[in-house]
Protein backbone atom coordinates (compact mmCIF):
# COMPACT_ATOMS: atom_id res chain seq x y z
CA UNK A 1 0.00 0.00 0.00
CA UNK A 2 1.12 3.43 -0.76
CA UNK A 3 2.31 5.37 2.16
CA UNK A 4 1.12 8.92 2.48
CA UNK A 5 4.14 10.94 3.26
CA UNK A 6 3.55 14.10 5.12
CA UNK A 7 5.67 16.58 6.94
CA UNK A 8 8.65 15.07 5.38
CA UNK A 9 11.27 17.56 4.27
CA UNK A 10 12.13 17.20 0.64
CA UNK A 11 14.40 19.64 -1.04
CA UNK A 12 13.24 21.31 -4.21
CA UNK A 13 15.79 20.80 -7.01
CA UNK A 14 17.47 24.03 -8.08
CA UNK A 15 15.99 25.47 -11.27
CA UNK A 16 18.46 25.58 -14.07
CA UNK A 17 18.65 29.22 -15.11
CA UNK A 18 21.62 29.02 -17.40
CA UNK A 19 19.47 29.65 -20.48
CA UNK A 20 17.80 32.69 -18.97
CA UNK A 21 20.34 35.18 -20.35
CA UNK A 22 19.85 33.73 -23.82
CA UNK A 23 16.11 34.17 -23.61
CA UNK A 24 16.45 37.73 -22.41
CA UNK A 25 18.97 38.51 -25.11
CA UNK A 26 16.55 37.18 -27.66
CA UNK A 27 13.87 39.52 -26.32
CA UNK A 28 16.35 42.36 -26.36
CA UNK A 29 17.25 41.81 -29.99
CA UNK A 30 13.61 41.51 -30.92
CA UNK A 31 12.84 44.86 -29.36
CA UNK A 32 15.92 46.44 -30.84
CA UNK A 33 14.90 45.44 -34.33
CA UNK A 34 11.21 46.33 -34.22
CA UNK A 35 11.45 49.64 -32.44
CA UNK A 36 13.14 52.87 -33.31
CA UNK A 37 14.97 55.35 -31.13
CA UNK A 38 12.98 58.38 -30.11
CA UNK A 39 14.21 61.27 -32.18
CA UNK A 40 13.46 64.06 -29.76
CA UNK A 41 11.49 64.86 -26.65
CA UNK A 42 8.15 66.15 -27.75
CA UNK A 43 7.25 69.62 -26.68
CA UNK A 44 4.09 69.61 -28.70
CA UNK A 45 1.43 66.99 -28.55
CA UNK A 46 -0.08 65.59 -31.67
CA UNK A 47 -2.16 62.72 -32.86
CA UNK A 48 -1.31 61.50 -36.30
CA UNK A 49 -4.05 61.64 -38.90
CA UNK A 50 -5.13 58.46 -40.61
CA UNK A 51 -4.64 57.39 -44.19
CA UNK A 52 -4.44 54.22 -46.25
CA UNK A 53 -1.91 54.85 -49.03
CA UNK A 54 1.13 54.90 -46.81
CA UNK A 55 4.73 54.41 -47.71
CA UNK A 56 7.47 53.69 -45.23
CA UNK A 57 10.27 56.15 -44.82
CA UNK A 58 13.30 54.16 -45.81
CA UNK A 59 16.53 55.68 -44.65
CA UNK A 60 16.33 57.22 -41.23
CA UNK A 61 19.43 59.34 -41.72
CA UNK A 62 17.82 61.15 -44.65
CA UNK A 63 14.65 62.11 -42.84
CA UNK A 64 14.12 65.33 -40.92
CA UNK A 65 11.02 65.98 -38.90
CA UNK A 66 8.80 68.98 -38.34
CA UNK A 67 6.35 68.62 -35.49
CA UNK A 68 3.18 70.65 -35.40
CA UNK A 69 0.75 70.68 -32.53
CA UNK A 70 -0.32 72.38 -29.33
CA UNK A 71 2.31 72.70 -26.58
CA UNK A 72 2.25 69.96 -23.96
CA UNK A 73 0.83 70.74 -20.52
CA UNK A 74 4.11 71.81 -18.98
CA UNK A 75 4.77 74.38 -21.70
CA UNK A 76 1.25 75.66 -21.99
CA UNK A 77 1.73 78.38 -19.42
CA UNK A 78 4.70 79.76 -21.23
CA UNK A 79 3.62 79.34 -24.82
CA UNK A 80 -0.16 79.26 -24.71
CA UNK A 81 -2.41 76.71 -26.36
CA UNK A 82 -1.93 77.89 -29.92
CA UNK A 83 -0.55 75.48 -32.49
CA UNK A 84 3.23 75.64 -32.55
CA UNK A 85 6.06 74.24 -34.61
CA UNK A 86 8.85 72.18 -33.09
CA UNK A 87 12.18 71.63 -34.82
CA UNK A 88 14.56 69.21 -33.13
CA UNK A 89 14.25 69.91 -29.42
CA UNK A 90 12.95 73.45 -29.43
CA UNK A 91 9.95 75.49 -30.44
CA UNK A 92 10.46 77.39 -33.65
CA UNK A 93 8.85 79.95 -35.87
CA UNK A 94 7.89 79.45 -39.49
CA UNK A 95 10.80 81.63 -40.55
CA UNK A 96 13.27 79.27 -38.84
CA UNK A 97 12.37 76.34 -41.07
CA UNK A 98 14.37 77.52 -44.07
CA UNK A 99 17.55 77.91 -42.06
CA UNK A 100 17.00 74.60 -40.30
CA UNK A 101 16.63 72.76 -43.61
CA UNK A 102 19.72 74.39 -45.08
CA UNK A 103 21.77 73.53 -41.98
CA UNK A 104 20.57 69.96 -41.89
CA UNK A 105 21.19 69.51 -45.57
CA UNK A 106 24.72 70.80 -45.39
CA UNK A 107 25.48 68.33 -42.61
CA UNK A 108 24.59 65.45 -44.90
CA UNK A 109 26.84 63.71 -47.34
CA UNK A 110 26.85 65.37 -50.69
CA UNK A 111 25.33 62.47 -52.60
CA UNK A 112 22.54 62.23 -50.04
CA UNK A 113 21.52 65.86 -50.08
CA UNK A 114 19.09 65.47 -52.93
CA UNK A 115 17.39 62.57 -51.18
CA UNK A 116 16.48 64.42 -48.03
CA UNK A 117 12.88 63.86 -47.00
CA UNK A 118 11.01 66.08 -44.61
CA UNK A 119 8.34 64.35 -42.59
CA UNK A 120 5.59 66.62 -41.33
CA UNK A 121 4.17 65.24 -38.12
CA UNK A 122 1.14 67.32 -37.45
CA UNK A 123 -1.88 66.90 -35.27
CA UNK A 124 -4.98 65.87 -37.18
CA UNK A 125 -6.91 68.85 -35.85
CA UNK A 126 -4.37 71.37 -37.11
CA UNK A 127 -5.70 74.07 -39.40
CA UNK A 128 -4.33 74.01 -42.91
CA UNK A 129 -3.07 77.59 -42.71
CA UNK A 130 0.01 76.68 -40.73
CA UNK A 131 0.67 73.56 -42.82
CA UNK A 132 0.48 75.63 -45.99
CA UNK A 133 2.97 78.11 -44.52
CA UNK A 134 5.35 75.27 -43.70
CA UNK A 135 5.00 73.91 -47.19
CA UNK A 136 5.81 77.29 -48.67
CA UNK A 137 8.92 77.52 -46.47
CA UNK A 138 10.00 74.05 -47.54
CA UNK A 139 9.52 74.93 -51.18
CA UNK A 140 11.66 78.00 -50.76
CA UNK A 141 14.37 75.89 -49.11
CA UNK A 142 14.15 73.36 -51.94
CA UNK A 143 13.13 70.56 -49.62
CA UNK A 144 10.62 69.18 -52.07
CA UNK A 145 10.37 65.58 -50.93
CA UNK A 146 7.91 65.56 -48.09
CA UNK A 147 5.85 62.99 -46.27
CA UNK A 148 2.75 63.59 -44.25
CA UNK A 149 3.15 61.29 -41.26
CA UNK A 150 0.02 59.22 -40.74
CA UNK A 151 -1.15 55.99 -39.24
CA UNK A 152 -2.88 53.19 -41.07
CA UNK A 153 -6.61 53.67 -41.18
CA UNK A 154 -8.50 50.65 -39.97
CA UNK A 155 -12.07 51.78 -40.53
CA UNK A 156 -13.92 54.63 -42.06
Amino acid at each position, binding site marked *: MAKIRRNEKREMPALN*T*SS*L*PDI*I*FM*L*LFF*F*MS*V*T*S*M*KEVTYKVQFQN*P*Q*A*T*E*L*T*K*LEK*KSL*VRYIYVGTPTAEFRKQYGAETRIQLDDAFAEKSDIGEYIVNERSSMKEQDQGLM*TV*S*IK*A*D*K*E*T*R*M*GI*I*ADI*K*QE*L*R*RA*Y*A*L*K*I*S*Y*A*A*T*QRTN*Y
Partner: protein
Amino acid sequence: MAKKVPQINASSMADISFLLLIFFLVTTSMDVNQGLARRLPAPIPPDQKVEDTDINKRNLLVVKINSANQLMVQGQLTDVKQLREKAKEFIKNENDDAYMPKLFEEDFGAPIGVVKYTKEHVISVQNDVDTRYQSYLDVQNELVAAYNELRDECARKYFHKGYNELEEDQQKQVQKVYPQKISEAEPKNYGGN
Protein backbone atom coordinates in the same frame (compact mmCIF):
# COMPACT_ATOMS: atom_id res chain seq x y z
CA MET B 1 49.92 19.07 -15.37
CA ALA B 2 47.15 20.99 -17.06
CA LYS B 3 45.71 23.66 -14.88
CA LYS B 4 41.98 23.67 -14.57
CA VAL B 5 40.37 26.92 -15.71
CA PRO B 6 37.87 28.00 -13.13
CA GLN B 7 34.36 28.39 -14.48
CA ILE B 8 33.17 31.96 -14.82
CA ASN B 9 30.14 32.73 -12.78
CA ALA B 10 27.49 33.71 -15.31
CA SER B 11 24.57 34.10 -12.97
CA SER B 12 24.63 37.90 -13.30
CA MET B 13 24.41 37.67 -17.06
CA ALA B 14 20.63 37.53 -16.87
CA ASP B 15 20.56 40.70 -14.79
CA ILE B 16 22.79 42.51 -17.22
CA SER B 17 20.70 41.55 -20.20
CA PHE B 18 17.53 42.47 -18.34
CA LEU B 19 19.01 45.87 -17.72
CA LEU B 20 19.80 46.30 -21.42
CA LEU B 21 16.34 45.12 -22.36
CA ILE B 22 14.66 47.60 -20.08
CA PHE B 23 16.90 50.39 -21.30
CA PHE B 24 15.87 49.71 -24.89
CA LEU B 25 12.22 49.42 -23.97
CA VAL B 26 12.32 52.86 -22.41
CA THR B 27 14.32 54.72 -25.03
CA THR B 28 12.67 53.38 -28.15
CA SER B 29 9.24 53.88 -29.56
CA MET B 30 7.19 51.31 -31.36
CA ASP B 31 5.64 53.51 -34.02
CA VAL B 32 6.96 52.97 -37.50
CA ASN B 33 7.67 55.97 -39.61
CA GLN B 34 5.20 55.93 -42.39
CA GLY B 35 3.33 58.59 -44.19
CA LEU B 36 1.82 59.85 -47.38
CA ALA B 37 4.73 60.74 -49.63
CA ARG B 38 4.25 63.81 -51.81
CA ARG B 39 6.44 66.02 -53.87
CA LEU B 40 6.22 69.80 -53.69
CA PRO B 41 6.60 71.89 -56.82
CA ALA B 42 9.82 73.85 -57.19
CA PRO B 43 9.65 77.45 -55.98
CA ILE B 44 9.00 80.26 -58.41
CA PRO B 45 11.98 82.61 -58.67
CA PRO B 46 11.08 86.00 -57.18
CA ASP B 47 11.89 87.90 -60.36
CA GLN B 48 9.60 85.73 -62.43
CA LYS B 49 6.01 86.71 -62.77
CA VAL B 50 3.41 84.08 -62.06
CA GLU B 51 2.00 83.12 -65.38
CA ASP B 52 -1.46 81.84 -65.78
CA THR B 53 -0.80 78.40 -67.11
CA ASP B 54 -3.25 77.75 -69.82
CA ILE B 55 -5.05 74.59 -68.90
CA ASN B 56 -8.00 73.62 -70.94
CA LYS B 57 -11.04 73.50 -68.74
CA ARG B 58 -11.88 69.93 -69.63
CA ASN B 59 -8.47 68.79 -68.43
CA LEU B 60 -8.98 70.15 -64.97
CA LEU B 61 -10.58 68.46 -61.97
CA VAL B 62 -11.09 70.99 -59.24
CA VAL B 63 -11.36 69.70 -55.68
CA LYS B 64 -12.11 72.32 -53.08
CA ILE B 65 -12.29 71.86 -49.34
CA ASN B 66 -13.87 74.65 -47.34
CA SER B 67 -13.44 75.72 -43.73
CA ALA B 68 -16.25 73.38 -42.64
CA ASN B 69 -14.36 70.49 -44.26
CA GLN B 70 -16.94 70.04 -46.98
CA LEU B 71 -15.79 68.81 -50.32
CA MET B 72 -16.62 70.30 -53.67
CA VAL B 73 -15.68 68.40 -56.82
CA GLN B 74 -16.29 70.21 -60.11
CA GLY B 75 -18.75 72.50 -58.36
CA GLN B 76 -20.70 69.67 -56.78
CA LEU B 77 -20.88 68.89 -53.10
CA THR B 78 -19.35 65.41 -52.75
CA ASP B 79 -18.57 62.94 -50.03
CA VAL B 80 -14.93 61.95 -49.55
CA LYS B 81 -15.84 58.32 -50.18
CA GLN B 82 -16.99 59.11 -53.70
CA LEU B 83 -13.88 61.07 -54.57
CA ARG B 84 -11.81 58.03 -55.49
CA GLU B 85 -14.31 56.80 -58.07
CA LYS B 86 -14.75 60.27 -59.51
CA ALA B 87 -11.02 60.78 -59.80
CA LYS B 88 -10.55 57.41 -61.49
CA GLU B 89 -13.31 58.13 -63.94
CA PHE B 90 -11.73 61.49 -64.68
CA ILE B 91 -8.20 60.17 -65.15
CA LYS B 92 -9.32 57.32 -67.41
CA ASN B 93 -12.03 59.00 -69.48
CA GLU B 94 -12.88 55.70 -71.14
CA ASN B 95 -15.82 57.01 -73.14
CA ASP B 96 -13.99 60.06 -74.46
CA ASP B 97 -16.53 62.45 -72.96
CA ALA B 98 -16.29 66.04 -74.09
CA TYR B 99 -16.16 67.39 -70.55
CA MET B 100 -13.42 64.99 -69.48
CA PRO B 101 -9.72 65.30 -70.29
CA LYS B 102 -8.57 64.95 -73.84
CA LEU B 103 -7.23 61.56 -74.88
CA PHE B 104 -3.87 61.17 -76.54
CA GLU B 105 -2.53 58.07 -78.26
CA GLU B 106 1.00 57.04 -77.49
CA ASP B 107 3.22 54.00 -77.76
CA PHE B 108 4.41 52.92 -74.33
CA GLY B 109 6.50 50.01 -75.58
CA ALA B 110 5.86 46.30 -75.19
CA PRO B 111 3.76 44.83 -73.74
CA ILE B 112 1.51 47.84 -73.30
CA GLY B 113 1.70 49.08 -76.88
CA VAL B 114 -0.33 51.96 -78.20
CA VAL B 115 -2.80 53.14 -75.59
CA LYS B 116 -5.02 56.15 -75.26
CA TYR B 117 -4.39 58.17 -72.13
CA THR B 118 -5.20 61.56 -70.70
CA LYS B 119 -1.88 63.25 -71.05
CA GLU B 120 -2.77 66.70 -69.87
CA HIS B 121 -5.18 66.07 -67.03
CA VAL B 122 -4.57 67.95 -63.81
CA ILE B 123 -6.23 67.48 -60.45
CA SER B 124 -6.22 70.73 -58.56
CA VAL B 125 -6.67 70.65 -54.80
CA GLN B 126 -7.62 73.89 -53.12
CA ASN B 127 -8.15 74.22 -49.44
CA ASP B 128 -9.14 76.89 -46.97
CA VAL B 129 -6.88 78.23 -44.24
CA ASP B 130 -9.23 76.74 -41.67
CA THR B 131 -9.54 73.28 -43.21
CA ARG B 132 -8.70 70.46 -40.82
CA TYR B 133 -5.46 68.66 -41.56
CA GLN B 134 -7.23 65.30 -41.41
CA SER B 135 -9.76 66.35 -44.06
CA TYR B 136 -6.99 67.61 -46.30
CA LEU B 137 -5.08 64.38 -45.88
CA ASP B 138 -8.23 62.36 -46.59
CA VAL B 139 -8.53 64.08 -49.95
CA GLN B 140 -4.85 63.61 -50.77
CA ASN B 141 -5.13 60.00 -49.70
CA GLU B 142 -8.12 59.32 -51.93
CA LEU B 143 -6.43 60.90 -54.92
CA VAL B 144 -3.24 58.90 -54.40
CA ALA B 145 -5.41 55.81 -53.92
CA ALA B 146 -7.13 56.50 -57.25
CA TYR B 147 -3.78 56.61 -59.04
CA ASN B 148 -2.54 53.52 -57.21
CA GLU B 149 -5.65 51.58 -58.16
CA LEU B 150 -5.42 52.61 -61.80
CA ARG B 151 -1.77 51.65 -61.95
CA ASP B 152 -2.51 48.35 -60.34
CA GLU B 153 -5.28 47.66 -62.85
CA CYS B 154 -2.94 48.54 -65.67
CA ALA B 155 -0.20 46.31 -64.29
CA ARG B 156 -2.61 43.38 -63.96
CA LYS B 157 -3.90 43.87 -67.47
CA TYR B 158 -0.54 43.98 -69.24
CA PHE B 159 1.89 42.24 -66.90
CA HIS B 160 -0.56 39.94 -65.08
CA LYS B 161 0.96 41.01 -61.80
CA GLY B 162 0.23 43.60 -59.15
CA TYR B 163 1.90 46.97 -59.53
CA ASN B 164 4.03 46.43 -56.45
CA GLU B 165 5.44 43.17 -57.81
CA LEU B 166 6.71 44.72 -61.03
CA GLU B 167 10.33 45.48 -61.83
CA GLU B 168 11.37 49.08 -61.53
CA ASP B 169 11.41 49.83 -65.26
CA GLN B 170 8.04 48.14 -65.67
CA GLN B 171 6.66 50.36 -62.93
CA LYS B 172 8.01 53.37 -64.79
CA GLN B 173 6.20 52.20 -67.91
CA VAL B 174 2.94 51.99 -66.00
CA GLN B 175 3.58 55.35 -64.40
CA LYS B 176 3.81 56.89 -67.85
CA VAL B 177 0.31 55.69 -68.68
CA TYR B 178 -1.04 57.20 -65.46
CA PRO B 179 1.18 60.14 -64.59
CA GLN B 180 0.39 61.56 -61.17
CA LYS B 181 -0.67 65.15 -61.56
CA ILE B 182 -1.99 66.63 -58.39
CA SER B 183 -1.52 70.34 -58.19
CA GLU B 184 -2.00 72.39 -55.09
CA ALA B 185 -2.99 75.99 -55.24
CA GLU B 186 -1.90 78.56 -52.72
CA PRO B 187 -4.40 78.59 -49.87
CA LYS B 188 -7.14 81.16 -50.20
CA ASN B 189 -10.02 82.14 -48.07
CA TYR B 190 -13.15 80.62 -49.51
CA GLY B 191 -16.44 81.53 -47.94
CA GLY B 192 -17.03 81.52 -44.21
CA ASN B 193 -14.64 83.83 -42.35
